[in-house]
Structure formats: structure tokens, C-alpha cells
């Protein structure tokens, strides 16, 4: 399924439900943000902000892999790195000072 089909599917799932509120959840702008639409096939993306900012890149890699391997998220292999980079850059653990 293409990314566009997914976005449409996610939008359909939202129509007419209280979950339409999730459209108000705004993700930070940055490279890879469009790929995060894959996540919306199954859940609202407030899961991302909620789990921030305490996961490092390895932590976010673990989360994305769990989504693919356990929950069967249909994320193409070639997009995993872009998603993990987006998540760890925008919602990752701040660097130690």
C-alpha cells in the first residue's frame, strides 16, 4: 500500500469519530515528518510527543522495530532510517551537557 493510501485510510478512520480531535496533534516540522504518516494507520501521533524526550536513537529504533516486528506496521525497510532520524532529532533525549 502506498503512503497516500495510508493517509487516506487513516483519515477515513477518523471521520465522524471523537478521534477526529487527533487532527489537532501537530508534529514538529523536519525531514522525515511525512513518513511518520505510516504510524497513523494504527494510532494517533500523540504517542510520539508523549514518549518524549527520553529515548535516544537506539530507543526510537527499538520502538519503530517493535511496531514493525510485533504489530506488523507496514513500514518499508528503506524508510525506517528516515523515521528514526526524524523521531530522535525532534523527540529524542537531549544531548548530555
Amino acid at each position: 500500500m502506498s503512503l497516500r493510501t495510508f493517509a487516506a485510510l487513516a483519515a477515513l478512520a477518523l471521520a465522524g469519530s471523537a478521534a477526529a480531535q487527533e487532527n489537532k496533534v501537530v508534529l514538529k516540522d523536519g525531514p522525515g515528518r511525512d513518513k511518520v504518516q505510516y504510524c497513523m494507520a494504527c494510532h494517533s501521533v500523540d504517542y510520539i510527543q508523549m514518549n518524549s524526550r527520553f529515548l535516544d536513537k537506539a530507543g526510537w529504533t527499538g520502538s519503530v522495530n517493535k511496531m514493525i516486528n510485533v504489530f506488523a506496521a507496514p513500514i518499508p525497510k528503506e524508510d525506517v532510517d528516515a523515521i528514526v532520524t526524524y523521531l530522535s532529532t525532534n523527540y529524542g533525549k537531549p544531548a548530555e551537557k
Partner: protein
Amino acid sequence: MENNSSRRKFLLNTAGAGALATLGPVRSWAATVGSSGELGFAELPDGTLAEQMLYALPGKVPLIKKTFRPPNFETPVQYFRTPITPNKAFFVRWHLAGIPQVDAKKWRLSVGGDSAEREVILTLDQLRKNFNPVEITAVCQCSGNRRGLFEPHVAGVEWGAGAMGNARWRGARLKDILAKAGVKAGAVEVIFDGADTPPLEKTPDFVKSLPVAVAQDENVLVAYEMNGAPLPHFNGYPVRLIVPGWTGTYWVKQLVSVKVSSQPEKNFWMSTAYRLPRGKFNTPTFESQLYSANEPISAQVVNSLMTSLRTGQRIPRGKPIDVKGVAWDRGTGIAKVEVSVDSGARWEEAKLGKDLGRFSFREFSFSAPTKEPGSLVVMARATAKSGETQVEKLIFNPAGYHHNVIQRIYVEVV
């Protein structure tokens, strides 16, 4: 400035100052929704605090929104000031976004499995009329209640202290229903499925199991009423499983299938999720699920929540500090709740409220006079009839379960 200097004085003068150092900056002015710091706990992740808000789902009062889809909503602390949590304020927790609106007229409960003598199909009417109705007051608490307070933080739904509620449940005994189907010798587990579904076909459906002995406990109910009313949609309408003492993960909502099985259930939600390192907690062992290095979570640990105070609260000198809250455990009952107003140097017993049953919240209250201006750390520590008591320091586990660290609320006498 007055605040700072009196706090500094307190820090210099008190032996228990170490306790305060862990509180972090006090933000008494901040009206942050669902802050756990305000309740005297470690604070939620900053991303959680920024994202959460009060939002009313259909049929609910505004609750603390964690996630919209699937819906995960926490009960604000004020609803724990009564021992029974109102249906409209009861927390909401779903794993999978496919949550149907169940038509009670069409709803059926199928009871069978390879260790049942026969298959039985029940309508809601039959469930109500053919079985002796039983009522029990019991706490339903998410395994991950207070996960957001873990240090270091762990991934998951970042709950504060409100992923729990106490209600009067009415329904049929599961053991009576199982008896109609007939439980064969050699039955090991009873497996439960609800009407909810994953959005994608390949995602594991949410299915849970219990040891056959637990399923046949007289307190385990197939409930169709909550606090004298039908269950709210978001709490499992029309029927959910009630497993008093055990964590909420076993309280399957929108229950449609019960299977008596000769084999352990090994789907993801049993074999991988909701697991603890073995032997870290003194809770019942789920014997048939010990096929890997860890073990399933089972019954809850003893815990309490002070509901009458907020960290940073100012109390006029001469007025008492009124400490009120609720305590609960896995069903041995609450033996005592002790309160300290001096960072834990001295403990005094609080007065316990009416006993609503051993699985219920037990209210407690304590009043301490205030004489001198200054800062105080107020703590409450529940002890169960089993002898189990709340812990000083977090028992860390990777999935963030069983947080029962003693709350430390900092108040200022002015």
C-alpha cells in the same frame, strides 16, 4: 523571595532535607494538566506534559488525554476524593483502535474451548437471569499506572496516578458460567477475548488468559453493571471481566469469548507484553506462563494516593494540614495507613474510613496541627493485611509496572 529563603532555611535545618532534594523545582503556580510533580511524585516526561490536556470523550467528563486513538485517558485526582469513582470519570485504556459500538441485543458470549465439555452461548438477558447476580466493589488499576513517574522514563503510555478507579461491579460469577460449559480435568488456563480488533489484520488481537484456579475464584465476575448503571462504552459496554485484585490488563472489555484451555495462551499480549523480571515482586505466580525468562504481571501491589494536598500548597499557620486519600492492595485488605509530616522521621496512624470490602479503595484521613512557619514534606504509607508495605525507592522494571513509591508532598506553612 520569601518562598526561597524559608525553603533554604528548611533545607539547612532539617535532617530530612535529602528527601526534598529529589523533588526538583516546585511549580506551585503552574496549572499544568495532570502534573505528577504537583502530587508529590517524580514528574512526567516533558513531552507528555506538553501534549496532554483535558478532553471529554462522549459520555465522559473531561479527563486527562494521553492519546486520542486508541483512546487512553486518565482520571484527574479530584475524582479520588470519594471512595467510588464515578462512571463518567473512570479512566479509559485501549490497546487497539478498532472499538465497535456493541449492540447489547446482538451481543453474545461464547463459552467453550478444548477443555470445556460443551459450548454455551449466552445472551445478555440469559446472563442476567440465569445466573445468581453478585456485587463486588473492586479497584481496577492499569498495570502501568504511574509509569510516567519512572526514573529513568520507560516507553509506553506515560500514566500519572490516575489510571485506576474503584467501582461497584454487578454480574454473574465466571465460575458459574464455566460450570454450565463444564471444565474438564487437565484445564490449565481460561482465555478471554473482547470485541475490539486491531486496525491491521496482522497485528496481534488483544487476548488474555488467567490460571484456571483464578478464573474459578468466586470473586471473578462477568459484569454488566458498574455503580448501578450499564458500563460506559469506553469501559467495556455491555460486559467486561472483573478480576478483583489482579491488574487491569486481565479485565477484558467488551467480552465476547471465553475458552477453557489445556494449553497456555502464548499470543504477544501474554508471552511478551505485561511481563516482569521473575521474583522482583511478592505477587502470585502464574505457573503455566513460566515458559520464558520473565513472568506475567498478576495481582497489584499495596499502594495509596493522597488527594487533598498539592506540592507547593501554602497553609496558613494555625490551620491544620488535612491529609486525605485512598489506599488499596490486591485484596488482603488495608491494615493501616501511616502519615508523616516530617519527611518520614516520625509516622502516625491515619484514621481509616468505611470498609467497602477488601478489594475496594479504603479512605484514610489525618490532621496535623501547624505551629511554626516553614516547609514540610507530607508522606503517606499504606500497609496491607498481608504485611506488605509501600516502598521508599522504585523497584525498576523495564515495562514500568507496579509503581508504589511513597508520595512526598511539599507544603509550606505561612
